[in-house]
């Protein structure tokens, strides 16, 4: 009996959680410009999304493209910087370690509007023109801490003797790093990259404040501007639906893999 109510509760929550998304998904298959009108099934919006036909279509795709480019570059640099940093931090002790870890954690606790405003002021102060470069720099600054936090545990878990064993067997520190340490850190680097990529994709406030006035749009800023104008670009509906489905598939795959490896271990 308890089980019935419990499941009911969960399902109610899920229905409410997904209602808006399902709603958008449904209406992505109709042509009506205004959301809520059903003018019959039509994949036209999907076509328009990819060919940039209807008004707003190409600006939207450009925004999507920017978002992806920024995310990939920022995540890649963050992974590199964060991994090197994690190796350095792992070898620090005491106050120095506390200090750098404190600074590392600030961007994660700071609300994105504060990060955005503070970086805005920084770029003004340094007289750096704001645009793609500043956005990428800003994203790197709030993504790297996540990489550090993903790689550090891998360093702690690593048998400390492994590096020494490599040296003992004749490897120079450089060789020991590449042949022995990096392979150990790879899983952490990968999850750090994915996390950084996600954080960057999802960001709005920081991009908003650091993109300057050159007309740089990411998906988030595009939606914001769009909503302010009052209308909702119809192509956004298929886009949202696609993103929704892609993420759903990805998450299911990841979780299936995870339960598979857990089953193997058992």
């Amino acid at each position, binding site marked *: 009996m308890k089980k019935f109510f419990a*499941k009911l*509760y*969960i399902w109610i*929550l*899920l229905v409410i*959680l*997904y209602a*808006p998304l399902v*709603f*958008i998904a449904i209406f992505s298959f109709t042509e009506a410009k205004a*959301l*809520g009108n059903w003018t019959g099934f039509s994949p036209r919006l999907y076509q328009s999304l990819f060919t940039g036909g209807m008004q707003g279509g190409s600006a939207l795709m450009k925004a999507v493209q920017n978002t992806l480019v920024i995310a990939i570059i920022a995540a890649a640099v963050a992974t590199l*910087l*964060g991994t*090197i*940093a994690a190796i*350095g*931090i792992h070898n*620090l002790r005491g106050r120095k370690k506390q200090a*750098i870890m404190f*600074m*590392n*954690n*600030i*961007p994660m606790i*700071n*609300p*994105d*509007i*504060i*990060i955005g*405003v503070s970086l805005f*002021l*920084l770029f003004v102060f340094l007289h750096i023109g704001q645009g793609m470069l500043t956005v990428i720099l*800003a994203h790197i*600054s709030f993504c790297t*801490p996540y990489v*550090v936090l*993903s790689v550090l545990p891998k360093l702690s878990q690593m048998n400390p003797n492994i590096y020494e064993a490599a040296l003992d067997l004749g490897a120079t520190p450089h060789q020991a790093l590449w042949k022995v340490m990096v392979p150990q850190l790879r899983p952490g680097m990968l999850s750090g990259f*994915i*996390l950084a990529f*996600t954080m960057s*994709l*999802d960001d*709005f*406030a920081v991009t*908003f*404040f650091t993109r300057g006035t050159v007309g740089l749009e990411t*998906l*988030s800023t595009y*939606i914001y501007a769009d*909503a*302010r104008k009052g209308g*909702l670009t119809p192509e956004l509906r298929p886009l*949202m639906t696609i*993103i929704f489905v892609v*993420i759903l598939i990805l998450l*299911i795959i*990841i*979780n299936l893999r995870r339960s598979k490896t857990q089953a193997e271990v058992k």
Partner: protein
Amino acid sequence: MTKRSNWSIPYFIFLVLFVVLPLVLVVVYAFQDNEGGFTLQNIGKFFSDSDAISTFALSLEVAIENTLICILLGYPAAYILADKQLNRSAVTIVLFILPMWINALMRTLATTELFNMLGFTLGKGTLLFGMVYDYLPFMIYPIYNILQKMDKSYAEAAGDLGATPRQVFLKVTLPLSMPGIMSGIMMVFMPTVSTFAISEFLTNNKIKLFGTIIQENINSSMWNYGSALALIMLIIIGITSLFTSDDSNAAEGGLI
């Protein structure tokens, strides 16, 4: 091997430049007037502006309400999900995590449009609803995580010593899951206090939150006042984080 610690130096410089310095600048601008001299008038302006203060209070109020509702709705959900007898499927938790990965603006927009279609007037009710909708997964996930990893022997020991299921929950499970609740509060309260775009969508700009004022000021080049407001928000955030976390588990980033 000890020389490896020097590898942290580039990152240290990076952090100082991109994290510490910007925050210092916020403080500096907050206390500067138009000519660049030191002044307290920016802070003073905030305290004398009744609109600003009421917006601030409103933001805090909304944030607290949002957090509380998220806890009330989210804890039971997390509990059910973590209880192997009530939930045997691994897919269900995935369904709760998924919304966290979809762009927040997108989700909020979808919610707003749904409200529009259903004919609800946009105002405080929809604002709160939309906030809960947006942030609920962030409350559920950390609590779920900690409940799931909790050693079953604590509950068993309590039962063995004579506690009823209700007592086991109140005296053992709930206290031990506090770190998860704290984590959830951090992930919900702080973003809610500082949000601006979401509130604009959900209320059709009728209700302004604190984040919006900051954004407006910065965008109209009122950097000094805007920084002062940002500084005030920072202080609130700082106080909250002191209360809710004492170690760097603040954001484990373990969403995968």
